[in-house]
């Protein structure tokens, strides 16, 4: 019961945050100079057509009115239609003249739904790779702070955190894909295309993981209950797994929740470089095309995911460690 009321409270706050985010993005997109209508109708369209289309689309109303209308539709589950992407997938070039109020533009939700699985697969692969790599290293560094492992962990951490992700991506594409022809790199035609971008993302995530893991393991292993467990004669293996890792998991999960926003930044660039047809690449394209509904839809989705993951992290921390207050 307590958990339920907590969930309701957190989801309510989350809804408020999502509304706030969408409002900020919505307002900023309309305040900065640059008229999307000109891009929509094409460069050759006469001025009165531009005005007519803008009026039809409600783009000349005051911003609060526009936002209220937009958010009302979002609450009903309608994220609107793209300004520039028709349903058949062709992007209209600048010279043509189209009328977005009559033509069949793809809905934002369908565009997102098409790309989302690919991005999720990429993220999952990257986190999996990062964990399999950093877990043994971080654990060893935390358990034996003066060993060669700890030095190695520090070294790896410093190097990895200093490599700009997109630069690494370019170098990897060049050597592994262009020269050695081991792995495909650009576009997406099958699961093997996930490997390289996921590797680059994993290199970006793992230094944070290694550090957090080694620090919290080292702290936990000095705690009184670990000494007591030793006195009680528990095997070292059980102490590490049952006490050390269990307690280290909470700060680690919190960190992953916080790191999510920089991870999203990484995904954006990596997808762009690898021409990987996920949400990140869609975002970059949407901004370049001034496709406002699409940008807003992606922003709302990301902040909702962000809110949900942070709630999940708190719930998981609570179930692992009852001392954590909800």
């Amino acid at each position: 019961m307590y958990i339920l009321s907590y969930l309701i409270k957190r989801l309510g706050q989350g809804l408020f945050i999502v509304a706030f985010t969408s409002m900020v993005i919505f307002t900023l997109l309309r305040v900065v100079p640059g008229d999307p209508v000109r891009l929509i109708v094409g460069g050759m369209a006469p001025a009165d057509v531009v005005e007519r289309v803008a009026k039809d689309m409600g783009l000349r109303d005051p911003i609060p009115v526009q936002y209220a209308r937009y958010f009302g539709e979002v609450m009903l589950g309608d994220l609107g239609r793209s300004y520039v992407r028709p349903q058949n997938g062709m992007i209209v070039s600048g010279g043509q003249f189209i009328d977005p109020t009559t033509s069949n533009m793809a809905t934002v939700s369908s565009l997102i739904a098409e790309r989302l699985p690919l991005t999720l697969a990429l993220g999952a692969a990257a986190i999996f790779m990062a964990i399999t790599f950093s877990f043994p290293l971080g654990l060893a560094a935390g358990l034996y702070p003066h060993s060669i492992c700890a030095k190695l962990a520090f070294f790896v951490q410093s190097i990895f955190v200093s490599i700009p992700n997109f630069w690494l991506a370019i170098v990897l594409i060049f050597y592994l894909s262009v020269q050695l022809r081991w792995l495909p790199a650009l576009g997406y035609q099958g699961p093997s295309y996930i490997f390289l971008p996921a590797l680059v993302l994993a290199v970006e995530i793992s230094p944070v993981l290694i550090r957090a893991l080694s620090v919290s393991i080292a702290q936990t292993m000095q705690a009184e209950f670990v000494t007591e467990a030793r006195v009680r004669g528990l095997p070292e293996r059980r102490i590490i797994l049952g006490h050390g890792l269990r307690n280290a998991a909470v700060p680690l999960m919190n960190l992953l929740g916080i790191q999510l926003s920089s991870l999203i930044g990484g995904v954006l660039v990596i997808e762009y470089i690898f021409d990987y047809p996920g949400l990140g690449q869609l975002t970059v394209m949407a901004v370049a095309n001034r496709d406002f509904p699409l940008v807003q839809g992606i922003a709302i989705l990301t902040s909702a995911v962000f809110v949900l993951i942070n709630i999940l992290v708190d719930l998981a921390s609570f179930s692992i460690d009852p001392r954590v207050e909800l």
Partner: protein
Amino acid sequence: MDATVYGPESAPRLALNKSPARRILEAAVRSPGFKVGMGVLLLLLFAMVFYPMLSDVSATTINVRARFLPPIGVGDKWIWAHPLGTDQLGRDILMRSVVGLRYSLFIGVASVFMMLMLGCGLGIYAGYRAGWRDTVIMRITDAQLSIPMIILAISILGVSTPTVQSIILVLAMSGWPLYARVARSVALAERSMEYVRGLEVLGASHWRIMLLYMVPTILPPIVFIAVLDVARMMIFETILGFLGLGVPPPAPSFGTMISDGRKYLINAWWIASCPGMFLALALLSLNLIGAAFERARNQVFGGSDGSQ
């Protein structure tokens, strides 16, 4: 400090009497990571300041006849005038990297400075005054933390025309909530200390207490975050440049250089690699310095750090 002030300042300077901030600084400076990082950083700063003054090569002049010259020692077309070769328009890569480093470092430092001022200011105010002011400021902070800032940043810069100032502003906007949180937690703890009550009794104004007594206490936990953040913001700046939303051309920036260079990777790998090396060196030095501060702080405050 006034000569009339009594207390620790007038006592003989034993190791124990040194302020934590000072002990952290000394412990950090002693660590090998700090020495290496500082050495590399000083070298880069030296090159950044003096190389453009001493060399008469321009970073932006296009010379089509000197296109794709390799760095010294690579192939047989290299010349001494262009130590790291030239790019697809015959511009000197060393000079462009050095000037690009100027932009990158300036944007990193300026944006971190701004977010530090804004975040710490709001955080101290919230923690010290508490009550409804605290609630309002912290709610804004929470909301800001869950906005996907990278999307906001590329939306703003993508729709408007990016300038150095707008890039700094956007980066600063994305980073201040973290500082606000740290500053608030320290100010909250500090607020209940005896000396603050003493100052209030003595009639010190809120602003005086905040500016003269709170600010110094929040510096130790903030400094290493700030150093690491300069590196993070430099990466962000490069990402923006890479997406075509960075410092406007023809000014050299790491992002645009790497983005342009990747088209010529097969025949002229140095165009993208050399700026990348410069950036990686700068990031490595900043990260080493920041990590040294963090470890030193953990040592001084008794927390244990995993390694070394």
